[in-house]
C-alpha cells in the first residue's frame, strides 16, 4: 500500500513536471499573435453572400449534413428519421433513406458517393449502399457504448467514428470489425475531421480539448486546450497545418499544429450563443460558424474579425458545410431547412 502510494506520488510529480515543461516550450515560441502578424494583410470588408436555394423536405430538426466530393450531391439527416440525398444544382431529392432509429446525430458521404453512413443515440453507425435500386443496409457497426456524434469515410472500406463513450474508432467495412480504438479523451467526443492525406485526424470533445491523432499508430500526438466548454465542431485549415474548433463557450479558436498552441480566438462580446458547426472556405480565409442564435457568422480567419452573417434560419443552425470546389456554403437548421449561399 505504502509502495503504491509512493509510486503514485512520484508519478503525479512527474505529470506536473511534464505539464510545466509543455507550457514553457509553448511559451518559448509564442513570439506574436496571429492577429498582430496579420496587421499588414488587407481587410476583407463586408462579406455578403446571397441565399440561392432553400431546400425543403425534412419534417423535423436537421442535425447533420455532408457534401459529396462531386460538390453537387449532399446528404442531410433529420430526426424525422430520414436521410435525404439532394442534387443541390436543381434542388431535387435523389434518394431517401429511412432510418431504423430516428435519433440521428451524424451523416457522411463516402468519397466514391456509393455509400452514406449515419448514427446517433442508437450507438450504432449504419452504412447504406445508395447506388442499389433502393437503399440497402451494408453494415451495422455496433460496438460503441455511447451515442455516435460523428462519422467520416476514409474510403468504401474504412470509416472513422466519434462517440459519446469518449472514444473514436476506425472500422473495417469489409469485416464490420474495429481496426483501431483511439482512447484519451475524458469527455464525450463530439466531432472529428480527417487530414487530406488521411494519416491524421483531429477530434473535439466535451472535455474542452482538441486532439491530433496518428490514424495508423492509434496514438494521440498533440492536445490543445483553451476552450472552457464542450467543443462541438472541428476542422482542418486547408493547408493542413492548423485546426479550427467551435465550442459551447461561444468562441471559435485556431490552433497551429506546428507551434502546438492556440494562435487566434474568435470571440465577440455580442455573440452569446454556442457554436454548433463550422466550415472553411477553400483558401482558409473565411470561417463559417453556425451558432445557437439561428445565424451562421462569417469570420476572417487571419484578422480574427467578424466579416459577415448568413441570416435566414428560424432556429439553431446545427450543421454547416463547404463543398470541395468551394463554390458555396450549405447551412442546415433545426427549422428543418437547408440553405445554400454564395
Amino acid at each position, binding site marked *: 500500500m505504502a509502495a503504491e502510494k509512493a509510486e503514485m506520488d512520484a508519478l503525479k510529480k512527474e505529470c506536473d513536471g511534464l505539464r510545466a515543461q509543455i507550457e514553457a516550450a509553448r511559451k518559448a515560441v509564442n*513570439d506574436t499573435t496571429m492577429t498582430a502578424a*496579420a496587421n499588414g494583410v488587407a481587410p476583407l470588408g463586408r462579406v455578403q453572400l446571397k441565399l440561392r436555394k432553400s431546400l425543403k423536405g425534412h419534417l423535423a430538426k436537421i442535425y447533420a449534413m455532408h457534401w459529396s466530393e462531386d460538390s453537387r450531391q449532399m446528404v442531410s439527416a433529420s430526426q424525422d428519421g430520414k436521410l435525404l440525398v439532394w442534387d443541390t444544382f436543381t434542388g431535387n431529392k435523389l434518394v431517401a433513406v429511412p432510418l431504423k432509429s430516428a435519433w440521428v446525430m451524424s451523416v457522411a458521404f463516402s468519397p466514391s458517393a456509393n455509400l452514406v453512413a449515419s448514427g446517433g443515440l442508437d450507438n450504432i453507425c449504419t452504412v447504406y449502399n445508395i447506388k442499389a435500386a433502393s437503399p440497402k443496409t451494408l453494415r451495422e457497426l455496433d460496438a460503441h457504448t455511447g451515442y455516435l456524434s460523428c462519422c467520416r469515410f476514409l474510403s468504401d472500406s474504412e470509416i472513422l467514428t466519434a462517440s459519446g463513450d469518449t472514444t473514436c474508432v476506425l472500422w473495417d467495412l469489409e469485416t464490420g470489425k474495429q481496426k483501431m480504438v483511439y482512447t484519451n479523451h475524458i469527455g464525450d467526443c463530439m466531432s472529428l475531421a480527417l487530414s487530406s492525406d488521411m494519416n491524421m485526424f483531429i477530434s473535439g470533445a466535451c472535455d474542452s480539448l482538441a486532439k491530433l491523432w496518428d490514424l495508423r499508430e492509434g496514438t494521440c500526438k*498533440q492536445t490543445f486546450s483553451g476552450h472552457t466548454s464542450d467543443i462541438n465542431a472541428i476542422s482542418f*485549415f486547408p493547408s493542413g497545418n492548423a485546426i479550427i474548433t467551435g465550442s459551447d463557450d461561444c468562441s471559435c479558436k485556431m490552433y497551429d499544429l506546428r*507551434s502546438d498552441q492556440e494562435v487566434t480566438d474568435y470571440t465577440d462580446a455580442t455573440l452569446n450563443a454556442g457554436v454548433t458547426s463550422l466550415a472553411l*472556405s477553400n*483558401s482558409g480565409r473565411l470561417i463559417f460558424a453556425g451558432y445557437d442564435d439561428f445565424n451562421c457568422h462569417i469570420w476572417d480567419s*487571419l484578422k480574427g474579425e467578424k466579416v459577415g452573417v448568413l441570416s435566414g434560419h428560424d432556429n439553431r443552425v446545427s450543421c454547416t458545410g463547404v463543398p470541395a470546389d468551394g463554390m458555396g456554403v450549405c447551412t442546415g437548421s433545426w427549422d428543418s431547412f437547408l440553405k445554400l449561399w454564395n
Partner: protein
Amino acid sequence: MHIEHFLSISGVKLVASGERGEIFSFALLLYNILSSDNITGNMTSNSNLSNMRRLVEQLKLEASVERIKVSQAAAELQQFCLQNAGKDALLVGVPTGSNPFREPRSCAVV
C-alpha cells in the same frame, strides 16, 4: 454526488434503522477515500496506478513535439490564404452565368 446515489451504484444497501448511523458514517468514510483521487471512475488503486503511468507516457509523447515560432506559423498561414484567395469563390464571388446554385434566368429557345 449524493451519498445515497453513491451507495446505490456501489451496491451497498442501508440496513435496519438501529445500525444506520454507523453504516452511514462508514459509507461516508469510504466515499471520501475513493473520491479523493482525481481520476474518477476507478475503484481499485491498481487501475489508478496504471492510468497514471499511461498519463505520464502520454505527456512525455506530447512534450517531445518540435515547435516552430508562432510568427513563422502565422506567416505561412497568411501566405496560404493570400496565394489561394483568387481561386476562393466565396471571396471573389461567382460569376452570375456560371453559378451552379442559381436558377438560370435566360429563356431557352424551344
